[in-house]
């Protein structure tokens, strides 16, 4: 004879079993899931990849950036720049970026500022290299948090912008950026910074600096697209970021970063 307890138990089990669709027993393929994510146009997160081995310090990226983004050419401000690091055998770290390397590095003399130069003999150099810099489009941008008027903000695709109509020019963000990428635009008199050439990347073009680089040292990619070659390098190779200890989660990744680079 069937007891009430047994009847209720088997009924519940039977109903649950019938309610379970076959799909519930499918193993979810993470690659399929990621592909679905990438197919969605809103799933874009722009990232940048710099290969310091490839950079030769020609500064064509800086020139192109200034022209493309209408940054006054002779003013000593720029959205992107290239730094030269020369490490001597007796432990000195020398770094310079004359005019942000707008005209490249056409001398072995290192610009120490205030009209002073230093020439290091080739045999005294332990290592030397170039490091292009630009806005890191941080996941936790400190520059955005300090803006008192809501003139700077991050978009869904990760780019940090400045609203020129709304910026009051207080300069908090310029002080707040640990990477020193922000400056005052001499014409608009508002804060200014790299935005990965937002007008180009949203049209399917590459940023002006990426197109101008003859050596492939600069690349842009979408970290949410697993098939993107830049994403694959960031995920599978050894890349570094700048000032990790600040917790800003910068989205510009470097191949061949050295600890001397600040």
């Amino acid at each position, binding site marked *: 004879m069937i007891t009430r307890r047994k009847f209720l138990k088997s009924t519940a089990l039977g109903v649950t079993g019938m309610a379970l669709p076959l799909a519930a027993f499918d193993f979810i393929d993470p690659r399929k899931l990621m592909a679905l994510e990438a197919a969605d146009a809103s799933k874009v997160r722009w990232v940048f990849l710099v290969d310091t081995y490839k950079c030769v310090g020609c500064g064509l990226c800086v020139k192109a950036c200034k022209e493309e983004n209408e940054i006054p050419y002779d003013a000593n401000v720029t959205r992107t720049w290239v730094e030269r690091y020369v490490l001597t055998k007796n432990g000195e770290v020398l770094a310079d970026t004359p005019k942000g390397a707008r005209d490249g590095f056409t001398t072995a003399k290192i610009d120490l500022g205030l009209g002073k130069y230093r020439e290091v003999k080739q045999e005294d150099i332990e290592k030397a290299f170039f490091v292009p810099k630009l806005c890191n489009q941080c996941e936790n941008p400190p520059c955005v948090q300090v803006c008192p008027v809501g003139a700077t903000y991050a978009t*869904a695709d990760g780019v940090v912008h400045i609203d020129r109509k709304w910026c009051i020019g207080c300069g908090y963000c310029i002080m707040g950026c640990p990477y020193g990428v922000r400056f005052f635009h001499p014409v608009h008199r508002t804060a200014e910074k790299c935005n990965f050439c937002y007008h180009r990347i949203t049209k399917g073009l590459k940023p002006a600096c990426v197109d101008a680089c003859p050596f492939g040292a600069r690349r842009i990619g979408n970290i949410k697209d697993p098939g993107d070659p830049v994403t694959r390098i960031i995920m599978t190779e050894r890349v570094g970021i700048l000032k990790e200890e600040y917790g800003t989660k910068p989205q510009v990744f470097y191949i061949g970063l050295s600890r001397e680079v600040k």
Partner: protein
Amino acid sequence: MKNHVYRPLLVVIAVVVLILAVRAIYVPDDFAIGDRGYMYGWHRQGNEVDWKNVKVKYLGREYCQDCHTDRYTSIMASAHQDIECENCHGPAVDHPDVRPALAIDKSRAHCLRCHFPLPYASSGRSKIPGIDPDEHNPDIACAECHNPHDPMEGLK
């Protein structure tokens, strides 16, 4: 309550109403919390469109290819194939309609960006042939001997 309590209260209410009214007029309608929440996304939404609408100035070598086919073909077959046209000729925006002639940078300094020798071992710069600008024909332009579209053409 007496009148002297109400009067300052009315003044305070008037000030608050005034501030709210000014804010309603002054702050644009599309000022809102964006996709990144209050901490990172509080902004005038229309500004994203403003940034998307900035004019593109560097158009890429594909833009030059159709009219300047011979130039395009010659540089693409040379050691300078990786150098974009606009790196020397300047941005092609509004060319040829508004700006029929582009200013070409033929200066020695422009060539020296890559060809000044800096033998930094871990940088690609050490692999590019360089010249000492004070020794190597200092008084003439590089382009007098070297065709920038095919730098070693016709040289011994």
